């Protein structure tokens, strides 16, 4: 058995998952992460680099990587692709002017071989804003129905109120678990 296979087995025994959160800057990635982890969200700065949180949820150990989304940081995203089980793509549902940028970035990501096996959760964030687009509109603009290469799901949420964060993460964990932990 190769070293990689052994490592993979060990990881699965511990029911460990690696989640990668990406999206344009200002989408609310860090806020979602901290809110989900029960931390204060009022002091969050724009991410200059990345954050990692390790947390337990439903008996899984989650390693969540949150990488800054500013233009100047996007070329570094690829440094974080390796061994990703779940990709969380966060969208600012009220930022209509940048939805096209958002679509392009996501479609480029989905061509990545190293993300080929990952499940995709799209968070249509900031649903608390009166001008936000519904998750169905986001689904259309991002052309999610064209995705044939990944399991995906879109969930409307708000990092500020916490609405639906759990729903999204639970779907993601179920999908990943069904894929990688059932074999053994």
């Amino acid at each position, binding site marked *: 058995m190769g*070293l990689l296979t052994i*490592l993979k087995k060990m990881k699965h025994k511990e029911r460990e998952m690696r989640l990668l959160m990406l999206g344009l*800057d*200002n989408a609310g990635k860090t806020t979602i992460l901290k809110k989900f*982890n*029960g*931390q204060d969200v*009022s*002091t*969050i*700065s*724009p991410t*200059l*680099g*990345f*954050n*990692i*949180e*390790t947390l337990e949820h439903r008996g899984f150990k989650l*390693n969540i990587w949150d990488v800054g989304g*500013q*233009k*100047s*940081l996007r*070329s*570094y995203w*690829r*440094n974080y692709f*390796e061994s990703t089980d779940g990709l969380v793509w966060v969208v600012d549902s*009220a*930022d*209509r*002017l*940048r*939805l*096209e*940028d*958002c679509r*392009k970035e996501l*479609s*480029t990501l989905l*061509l*990545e071989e190293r993300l080929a096996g990952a499940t995709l959760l799209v968070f249509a964030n*900031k649903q*608390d*804003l*009166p*001008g*936000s*687009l*519904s998750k169905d*509109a986001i689904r*259309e*603009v991002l052309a999610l129905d064209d995705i044939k290469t990944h399991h995906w799901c879109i969930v409307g949420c708000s990092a*500020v109120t916490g609405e639906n964060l759990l729903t999204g993460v639970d779907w993601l964990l179920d999908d990943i678990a069904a894929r990688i932990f059932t074999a053994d």
Partner: protein
Amino acid sequence: MAALGVEVTVPKDDGETNTAVNVPESVLRRDQARLEEAERRRNVKESQTVKEEKSDFFTSTFNAEKTAVEEMLSSSNFSDRDKAAKTLEEITVRIQQLQKFLNDSMLFLTQYEIRQAQASMQKLQSSLDEKRDLVLPKKKFAFRSRNAGATKQPEPSKQTTDKSASDVGGTVVVDAAISVYQCGFSNAENQVLIMQAEEIQQKDVLLSHLTNCKVKLYGCPSTLHIKNIRSCEILCGPVSSSVFVDQCTDSTLVFPCQQLRTHNTTATQIYVHVTSRAIIEDCREVRFAPFTWTYPGIHDHFKVAGLDPDRNNWTDVDDFNWLAAGTPSPNWTVIPETERISSWDFVGPS
């Protein structure tokens, strides 16, 4: 919660090493930047010749594919709708693959080569978008009208036709939506524009394509976007989350907020109260000073917005194009106290 970022994974060539340590975020960041720089240097040193070969290979492959796509765009027959859709689809995929090829090659390309290639990609993409708009006009989809009441537009008739602004991401679909449902002001010149607290309270407000205007927003929106602005003075009450500024020149911006994100902005003064942090990216000659505007009720508005009036980090500006530790960014400065504006009464009492 006490534990934050306790696990640092540093990718190595021969697998992965996990180190469990307790490090503050700032150190992590700096460490990441240092690692990336170190790795870049190492790569440069070890493989200078390989690098040159790779870069030659990149340039010729990239250019060949670029030319092929350009030819497809200019010489394909787009008169048959079904065939046109297919061809466009094919071109889309080729452009995506070319982008991926570029992304994968970035490690051994120079900044200059990357910029050149990115510019070519943008050109290809916009030629494709143009072609698509021409041969397959996009259907408009319906937005919910839950925010219709908040619209306040000086020149509504110009809205849907004005596409002159070269907003990178703005497609027809999205542009059309803005005019109808967005709270804020767009497409105005030489005007005084005012909104009261109840009109903007907890809303997402957009100010776009304004020239030589004076704007006062006496209230606390949830978030504020300021886009394509020239020679304007914009004042706003406490913004509970972020203010997003893009393509702004020769202007003065004044507001309290949780985060300030400034992009593609030049020769602009910002009087800010920011409780977490202000950042700039692709900016020049941006000058900062502490927020000094006041109006009746502003203290309550700080409370509504959840901003601490005693906590202002206006001097902590991160420049995302200037990550060198130690040397300050040349792209922003502090406005000397003697030059600061102290009175904001450009119009009579409201």
